[in-house]
């Protein structure tokens, strides 16, 4: 297993709803837990992944995710079992959209 941490400062979109979880920790899949958190406007992402050595790819995926959503005061926690970047991006977008409800 590998643990990866990312933090993006100066987000603009705050989340107010209850924590949401999306996805299942099965082969090729992941679960994404998204919560509001006091982080001085930052978005923090922690990933526990069974696929070791792909830090550069995770970095690029998280960067693009934050470009899309600009989250502020959000904590995202991920348990990953070898999902491809396509599935990771999909689940993370689904998690945010679930949080935002109709406002997405």
């Amino acid at each position, binding site marked *: 297993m590998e643990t990866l941490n990312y933090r993006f400062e100066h987000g603009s979109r705050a989340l107010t709803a209850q924590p949401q979880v999306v996805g299942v920790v099965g082969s090729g899949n992941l679960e994404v837990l998204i919560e509001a958190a006091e982080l001085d406007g930052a978005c923090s992402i922690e990933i526990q992944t069974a696929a070791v050595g792909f830090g550069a*790819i995770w970095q690029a995926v998280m960067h693009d995710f934050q470009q899309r959503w600009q989250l502020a005061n959000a904590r995202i926690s991920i348990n990953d079992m070898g999902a491809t*970047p396509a599935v990771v991006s*999909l689940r993370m977008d689904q998690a945010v959209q679930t949080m935002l409800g109709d406002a997405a």
Partner: protein
Amino acid sequence: MNWNTLQQNRAVRLQRAATVLGSELEGKSLPAARIADLLHAVLECGDRVCLEGNNQKQADFLGHALANLDPARINQLHMLQSVLALPEHLDVSERGIAARLDFSFSGPQAARVARLASAGKLNIGAIHTYLELFSRYFVDLPPRVCLIAAEAADRHGNLYTGPNTEDTPAIVEATAFKQGIVIVQVNRIVDQLPRVDVPADWVDFVVQSPRPYYIEPLFTRDPAQISEIQVLMAMMAIKGIYAEYGVQRLNHGIGFDTAAIELLLPTYAESLGLRGKIGQHWALNPHPALIPAIEAGFVKSVHSFGSELGMENYIHARPDVFAIGPDGSMRSNRAMCQAAGHYACDMFIGSTLQIDLQGNSSTATAGRISGFGGASNMGADARGRRHASPAWLKAGQQARAGRNTIPRGQKLVVQMVETFREHMQPAFVEKLDAWTLMEQADMAIPPVMIYGDDVTHILTEEGIANLLLCRSDEEREQAIRGVAGYTPVGLGRDQRMVENLRDRGIIQRAEDLGVDKRMATRDLLAARNMKDLVRASGGLYQPPKRFRNW
């Protein structure tokens, strides 16, 4: 000068067979227990032997008998077969009965083929695409003996090959009309055939095998395994390519990606008003996943390479759609269907394992010699084609706009692939594994499934790259990088160039196509599991046991 050597030699072989079988040869029919004696009698060392080894059906009884001959008596055979499917297909070489092999596909045996080749036990003449191999049967590789499989024979030796006719007509014609010997295993011998697929005049020996010939359901895909990513890609294919070019005549390479497209026709394509405008005529095996689209009125005709286990009753109940004879049962024909896929279809779409920066696509990987089956034929521009269609003209215009060249159409050849495969293997690479395989297996050129010049579109979860519109190698490379996602190839893109390509419509993202990613769920599939397919068929489709969960 003796101009009749073939016929005379044939007569000698037939005489040997008659002598060794004696009264057990009744007309053309012999008992299964005497098959080894027959083969020892009619074969001669160095013969070209064509064994069915089709993609689907296998003349397994005859293949097993061949693999168990005495190599001291029969050796140096030159084997010709479409597919190396069963272990005995390689035993023939490993045991020293065959010395040379020309084939098209070896999926199930690919690793063993590579091992035997590198150990010097397998001398591969060449790997072909199916139609190419059949063609050589009529030029420089006529079979001296062919070992085929049929459903039934009558007492004269007429054969019924039925829905699983596949390669048989091409093989038998090439053999019979060069004075070769045709040996067939049949499931049963009857007084009256439903129809005659091969006339008795062309058949020399008939043996009823102890068990029906082996056949696998290779074209069945359980909708339960289709992912959301594949649904998204299918939506982009339908909107960005099928609708855009008005693709009416097509072939799908088998896979879950294309199964997703088939299952989205009655739902997503219907919602776009595309029924009647796309997907009416298919060169395709009877895919169970196509049932909902047929029932919804999308599909006018399906001509097939072979049949598919479990689909028999459904096919029988839809005679307007499938290739049904006067007797009411289907006939397939791989040679003609491959020709149809080459000349009479406006689009091929299928998946692959690797694509390089020029768009060359291959499923060749180190340690596995698998060949490509029919993909190289289907996924190639048909330069001999002359009749026009809207899709063909539009593709040709896009390729030639702004260039000083005479107008021509072009076939759409779409490679559809997720950027990462299992175990985070990237589908986009700087250099194909095919180069490594070339060295390992001592091939003249790297084994490429579809050449970059023929690929017109690459579709990934990141979008569609239209290579027809590219005007330089650099544009082509960046267009490919621009849909290669987070693979090293994708991360190596020139951001500015890719944005420019997107502005010009050479790269299109889902948003550019008007595809709403949030709609890309499995709920969009017209059938989400095998039971749904059975229901869609009104209970006519009977999935093989391995696909059932009831």
